């Protein structure tokens, strides 16, 4: 299995027998939520779609996997979303077959999807790799695999001696601690389970990795070993262990 980091996404190519392009947390429709919070921008959906299509065209995958939170508004679907989402999805469909693992913001997304496009929200295994949006407890069948998850929108802040100079989306890779996971069965627990948290594709989403580590907000993030967790930038550069970031800021 090969992993390719697409920095202008950010996105992942997972290649085994099939070539899968993984994109997480698109959050189409976020502009109306921003407006409710006092930030007024016109819809950037067109640019975002173009960016996804550009990724598809450069990487030429067999399958596009949308790792949840394709749309933004909870719990309803807004006017903006009703208007835009069919067009967005058919733009993808025109280029490549796709599937969706629904996230917590995807309530009602089924109405926009064709048969076979919707996967279970507790996760799915495609070609030996497990995928999960990240807000739920993973299905036991995912254990023992590499789990690629979204939902957490990881972002890293790098500091030097004098101050902070870089804030960017990032990947967080960590091992799952079987003891911490509350799960029905732990059959596959003999093999290590690693989780790779993907950054959000959406331009404005982001949570600092240190916050995800110190104040975890999902069953998945609560079950990882933080002492060995590692941080990567969107083009695959290994930044270092999470502990180095903490030293940077804390020491």
């Amino acid at each position: 299995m090969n992993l390719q980091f697409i920095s202008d996404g950010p996105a992942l190519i997972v290649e085994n027998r099939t070539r899968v392009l993984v994109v997480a947390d698109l959050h189409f429709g976020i502009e109306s939520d921003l407006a409710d919070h006092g930030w007024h921008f016109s819809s950037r959906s067109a640019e975002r779609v173009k960016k996804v299509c550009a990724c598809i065209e450069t990487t030429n995958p067999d399958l596009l996997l949308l790792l949840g939170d394709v749309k933004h508004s909870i719990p309803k679907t807004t006017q903006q979303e009703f208007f835009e989402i069919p067009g967005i999805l058919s733009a993808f469909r025109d280029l490549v077959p796709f599937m969706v693992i629904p996230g917590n913001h995807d309530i009602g997304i089924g109405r926009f999807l064709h048969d076979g496009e919707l996967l279970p929200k507790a996760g799915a295994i495609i070609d030996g790799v497990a995928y999960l949006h990240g807000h739920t407890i993973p299905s036991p069948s995912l254990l023992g695999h590499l789990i690629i998850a979204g939902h957490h929108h990881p972002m890293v802040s790098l500091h030097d001696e004098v101050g902070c100079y870089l804030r960017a989306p990032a990947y967080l890779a960590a091992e799952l601690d079987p003891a911490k996971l509350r799960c029905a069965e732990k059959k596959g627990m003999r093999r290590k389970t690693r989780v790779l948290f993907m950054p959000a594709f959406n331009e404005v989403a982001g949570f600092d990795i240190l916050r995800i580590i110190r104040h975890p907000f999902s069953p998945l993030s609560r079950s990882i070993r933080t002492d060995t967790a590692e941080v990567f930038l969107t083009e695959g550069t290994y930044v270092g262990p999470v502990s180095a970031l903490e030293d940077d800021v804390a020491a």
Partner: protein
Amino acid sequence: MLLPDRLDERVRSCIKKRGFFALSDPQMQAIPLILDEKNIVLIAPTGTGKTESAMIPVFNALLSTPSSGGIRALYITPLRSLNRDILSRMEWWCRELSLSIGVRHGDTPASERRRQALAPPELLITTPETLQALFMGKRLRRHLAGIRYVIVDEIHELAGSKRGAQLAVALERLHVYASNFQRIGLSATVGNPDEIGRFLCGARPFTVVRVPVAKDLEIAVKFAGESFKQQVETLSSMLGRKGSTLVFVNTRVTAEALGHELFERGDVEVHHGSLSRDVRIDAEERFKRGEINTLICTSSMELGIDIGRVDHVIQFGSPREVARLIQRVGRAGHQLHTVSRGTILATGFSDLLESLVIARRARANEIENVIPHMNAADVLANQIAGISVEYGEIERERVREIIGRSHVFSDFVSLLEDVCLQMQEHRLIRLDGSRIITTARARKYLAGNLSMIHDERKVPVFDMVSRRTVGTLDESFVVGWVHTGAVFITKGQLWRVIEIADGKLTVEPARKVQGELPSWEGEQIPVPYSIAREVGGVRRNRTIRDYTSEPAGIRYAENFLLDMDKNHSRVPTDQLITLENTDEGVICNICAGHKANEAFGRVISIILSAKFGTTVGIELDAYRILLRLPSHIRAADVRDALDGLDPAHMPGIIRLALKRTALFKWKLVQVAKKFGAIDPDADFERISIQKLLDFFDGTVIQQEAYRELLSEYMDINTAAAIVELVRKGEITVTTGRLSIIGAEGLLTSRDEIPPPTADQAVIAAVRRRLESDEVVLCCMNCRDWKSRTVVSRVPATPQCPKCGARLIAALKPWEEPLCAVAGKKKKSDEERATELRLMKNANIVLSSGKKAVIALAARGVGPENASRIIGTLADGDAFYREILKAERNYIQTHRFWQ
């Protein structure tokens, strides 16, 4: 005709009733002109009867022409809470002359406003903001048609600000209803009165009436001591005199500190903008009544708030600007024809020299110019929004015509276009062909954005360890810069941000000095270039005695310079820049004033940060710049950076330098608010603000943020001129140790300059990571020595301490057991393969030394890859990029993920 004869009988009797037996000079000059229906700007010091100069002829005119219903005269004052004394005087006049008067400002109750809408007063006193609001109501608009006189008080305060630019446009909007009303501006002393006239009248004719001030001013400069304690004692000794004293200070912090020290005297009060209105009014009243005879105040007292007669004015610390000194001292000796006496108490070496220079200039009438904001995009947006609500829909050309009549917008057709498009993006207006149409949001936007003043909400800072609030931060600043993990200083302590939620910033104490709170004190007054240079000249020529005859000051200054000589420190002057090494970084002593130093400092910072891949912290004042740098960057490096600087490139460099700084983001947020992109009560807690701010890249909002910063906060042209002088050899640069001049003084403006590209930043992070990685060294010669250490401690050519050989393998910590294999006598096939690998490893270390050790510490890099990387002969940053490439390749493989 003699002046009194031109005045109505009733007006003449009022003058007598007020106790004026003669009209003042300004009044004698101004009143006839106003009676002749000329537009005028009256420049005169406080307390010379300026208000009456305007109001007497206006009242006269109001009496002689019948009322048409509606407002007839507008008196606009910039004070947010109106000058109660002017108000009570006007109320008296109107009562005597049976004219109706009304006041309308932010705090006017709704019932009063409604009354005014139904039965408008003939004279309306208002603020620039409330004038904006008058255009929004249909009924009120109708009442504007009869306005014949507009008086703008304290116009010098307005002309240089965006608030003033907004007012200038408002007057042109008024012109549409009440064409060609008479314009009267009342101003304190400025260097360029004609500009004030143009600001007020646009292209229309006007006359300037100037009442000279210098002959009535007496300014003394006294050295108050080097320590705060001595300075307080000196001040205290001056307060014992008969009469009332105003003590002006430059910051609220100083006001509070002095108030605290002098509290026990019982006759001293403090007055500044942060205090509540009641507290301020109480202090004003008690001062007026004589219950206290000293008021310590900041610039909040500069404007015409009347507190009765002031006998003495003391300026504690240099006033920074000539205009400010003149306005402040002008409060002394309020009665006409008396001399205004003021004393500056100088608080240190640079402060003393600066005070002396400013005093000289004040006596010579060399006063700073006021520079209006020309073509300010956010003012334009704000006014387009106002006009679109006023008219509902309107042709773009008409908008251009109205706004173009003001002095502050010219040649702005393409700007207008860009601004309209941007406003549409934020749904503030709609564009339909050549028409501008208002939107549903626009009224709400206007209600929250009547003013160009940025109403900074203060965000409380809550320490979760001690569970109490430790301070506040400006909201725009929090929005633009603060993020989880940010470290800053407040109340002398270090704090790290835990979260931003529930309207407050939760923090915990941080331990290491890393990143300071970027801060620029909004109320700090910048010292102009000309003054700083003159101070530099005094330092060079040692001509203190030309400026003062006060023995204490002369002695102090001359000794200070002698001490510099004794320490072999070169004295930085207008022709010499000294760069000094300190523990925290490098201090650049440049006598150029705040704005030029701000520009210069940032340019040098970004060059250094790009070159060395590190963030540079910057703090400065008018005479020195502290560059916070990692310890390996020294004064010589700064000089190199300066040597390589081409003045022509500096404007471009500074835009780059600004882009990711806290100052820029703060200003970006403020401008964006005026474009309706951000509501006044926008939520900034759960949203990744940094990313949203990126949306403004390349927009007119970003452009305006740059324009304002480059005109208000930093002067790149002067900085470039200085660099040019250095190039030509007219200014020399030396390096050395920290001197007493370098160590002096409170640095007022702080920020951080991150490296210009992320690439540099990442390389720096990786460098650090590799330096701190553990490595196991094992000798492949004697096979009897191994050592576990970190990469940073490995010498340039590793050597075995036992046998002296350099054939050392550098292994990752988990490969340590392999060393044992090397020492075995009998090896299996597998073990022989391991031995071969170790030899390969050691050979690379033998030929390439530490570079090999670093490469071998990287993830997934073994002898083959290390050899290849070193074979590229890449050095420095390029070397690390090769390492990163190799790591990335490894990370993508199956091996890494299983």
